């Protein structure tokens, strides 16, 4: 059914088109550029390319990804601005990786993290994107292009996004080091993660990752049970405690894995952990109910705890942050009008509305300059520049997150993203690590 209507739509769209496509599809691109420029000028998006509007309405793009960016508000706005339908499915990171690797026909757009990309790209279900069709490509933050936030930044350990960001052609399977013009994922959001704490229940400053295993918090600590991320948090703790210094936390040797897991097992046997969490809401409940006072946490979970009127701090720690980034990948099955719609969607994604929405939730967008246009000066100051709020800071869903005088935990963008110690990663010894992780869970 769907394919039929689509092929009709494609033929309809191609025959009456007044100007023909050149070999690189440049007609559309110039058209889009014009539309985007107009958009920026007026500050509102009004359904970009008019010629396509009629046919593109029939397109449905199926996107899946983790809950963080799979927001129904985005789907609704896509319908409003671009006219086509975006179906969203939210899954946990493991299921996302699984689906991207094994069910290529079940999606058109994969919203995945960079470490998942490293894992699933070789399965060959995704196609690389032509960066010349991405309007805002030049404004994408350096982290995703050459790996450097500033020219003098040091590249953190782990699966740094730029290292799996490019391949050598639309169906290239090997990652390349330079900006090749073919991007695997278009970065959407990223953030710097650290430990969440309940300052009211701890009552003293927390400055190091090592505190997670401090016996003072026996039975009141938690770590996330997604092995690939949990092991990184554990590595931050192990290094901070002086147990070990890693060559690369994102790609440990077997000995390093053993040392890390043994540390965790010892702590578990001593009753350090109250629970392990796997999903966002579990972490919120653990923290809000006071079962746990210090744990691995994600930024919106902090916001969710605060929204319940409970004190909760996303504690900057001296060893730095564990960072992650996500992006949109295109299914290999996309072609013709659907592929054009996907490019349109990606350009729209980077044009600011989504970025503003996500930044007001505490994430960062890939192109902060466009997001700025969709945020008030106070919001921009609070979320991006680390300035004290001049009034109430309200989330996109209407919750008051901060009030006058509050400063974001960790401060400004540069201060947070500039202090990344490692990126979420998938290791060469992945299978060994998973087995050891299972030993930890079964211990």
């Amino acid at each position, binding site marked *: 059914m769907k394919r039929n209507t689509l092929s009709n739509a494609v033929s309809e769209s191609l025959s009456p088109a007044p100007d023909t496509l050149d070999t690189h599809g440049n007609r559309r691109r110039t058209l889009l550029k014009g539309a985007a420029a107009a958009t920026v000028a007026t500050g509102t998006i009004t359904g970009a390319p008019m010629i396509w509007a009629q046919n593109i309405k029939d397109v449905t793009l199926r996107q899946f990804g983790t809950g963080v960016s799979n927001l129904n508000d985005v789907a609704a706005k896509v319908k409003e601005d671009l006219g086509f339908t975006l179906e969203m499915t939210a899954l946990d990171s493991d299921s996302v990786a699984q689906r991207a690797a094994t069910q290529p026909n079940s999606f058109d757009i994969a919203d995945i993290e960079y470490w998942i990309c490293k*894992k699933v790209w070789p399965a060959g279900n995704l196609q690389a994107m032509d960066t010349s069709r991405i309007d805002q490509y030049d404004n994408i933050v350096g982290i995703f292009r050459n790996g450097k936030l500033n020219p003098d930044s040091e590249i953190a350990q782990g699966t740094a996004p730029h290292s799996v960001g490019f391949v050598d052609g639309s169906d290239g399977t090997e990652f390349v080091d330079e900006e090749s013009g073919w991007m695997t994922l278009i970065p959407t959001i990223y953030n710097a993660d650290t430990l969440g704490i309940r300052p009211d229940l701890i009552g003293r400053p927390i400055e190091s990752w090592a505190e997670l295993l401090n016996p003072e918090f026996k039975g009141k600590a938690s770590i996330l049970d997604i092995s690939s991320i949990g092991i990184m948090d554990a590595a931050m703790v192990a290094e901070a405690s002086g147990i070990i210094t890693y060559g690369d936390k994102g790609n440990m040797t077997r000995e390093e894995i053993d040392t890390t897991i043994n540390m965790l097992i010892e702590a578990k046997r001593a009753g350090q952990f109250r629970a392990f969490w796997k999903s966002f809401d579990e972490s919120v409940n653990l923290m809000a109910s006071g079962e746990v006072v210090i744990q691995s946490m994600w930024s919106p979970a902090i916001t969710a705890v605060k929204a319940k009127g409970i004190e909760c701090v996303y504690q900057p720690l001296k060893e730095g942050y564990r960072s992650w980034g996500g992006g949109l990948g295109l299914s290999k099955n996309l072609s013709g009008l659907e592929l054009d719609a996907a490019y349109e969607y990606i350009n729209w994604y980077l044009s600011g509305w989504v970025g503003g929405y996500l930044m007001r939730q505490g994430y960062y967008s890939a192109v902060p300059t466009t997001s700025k246009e969709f945020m008030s000066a106070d919001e921009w100051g609070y979320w991006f520049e680390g300035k004290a709020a001049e009034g109430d800071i309200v989330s996109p869903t209407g919750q008051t997150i901060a009030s006058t005088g509050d400063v974001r935990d960790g401060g400004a963008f540069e201060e947070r993203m500039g202090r990344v110690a490692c990126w979420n990663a998938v290791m060469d010894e992945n299978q060994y690590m998973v087995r050891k992780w299972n030993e930890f869970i*079964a211990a």
Partner: protein
Amino acid sequence: MSASIDTPAAAGRPAAAVPGKRPRGRLSENLLGWLLATPFVAVLAVFLLLPIALIFVVSFWETSAYSYGPAFILDNYGYLLTSSVTLSVYVKTLMFTALTWAITLLIGFTVAWFLAFHVRSLGVQISLFLLCTIPFWTSNIIRMISWIPFLGRNGIANSVLLDLGVIDAPLEWLLFSDFAVILAFVHLYTLFMIVPIFNTMMRIDRSLIEAARDAGASGFQVLRHVVLPLTLPGIMIGSIFVVTLVMGDFITVRFMSGGQSASVGRTIANEIALLQYPAASANAVILLVTVLLMVGVLMRFVDIRKEL
């Protein structure tokens, strides 16, 4: 030889049928039987046997860093059968199963006994029985998760106990512990024990009990020598339900232990989540064999087909 198949219809057939026609009649009756069974056999073959066969095949495949593919290797089983994780996970799972089975049996038998022998009116019996099923109108997950705020450190149970002065500090082991896991299992699965036991108890000829009493049997003797043997098929059916459900569970263990305890189901779920399909398949095959053995042992105690 087809004539040796002992179908109930054939067994009930008069022996003095015309010898010449008998084989033909039986043959078509057999044929009819097979035809009637065909749709069910087909459904089972496609949706049960084929998937199990595939799982078996995949369990010999190999996994590389980020993908997996056809091969014939024994590594998956090799690791599984030599790893200390497997042993500890099975011990834990069997512990959950044994305790849950014993507790659900005790509660299930008592409730069924009360319903079957102490409640005289059929109307009350049915309404009380329906009452038992009411919690099952909500989802399994909801029933399980609702324990979490109740048992938590600052939960209702702890607040009440603290207010009553029974304890001085919140009981930590109420939630995210093996206790919580077994509590949830018992809550979730007791009905699976009550229903078959109640069913078999209702079919016990009351005159047998009267006869036992007339012969001077005490209440306990009636229970031990009359009711228990006659209820055995129900107990076995209930046990099979409970044992298979608990052995295969992964979500209850994860939620109620706060991720602290492992079970075989959880290990499989983790492996699937991490795309380790061959390892998960090998694990599933071993679990299937274990559960089949357990069910086989249960079946030794009673011939369910004869009793039903």
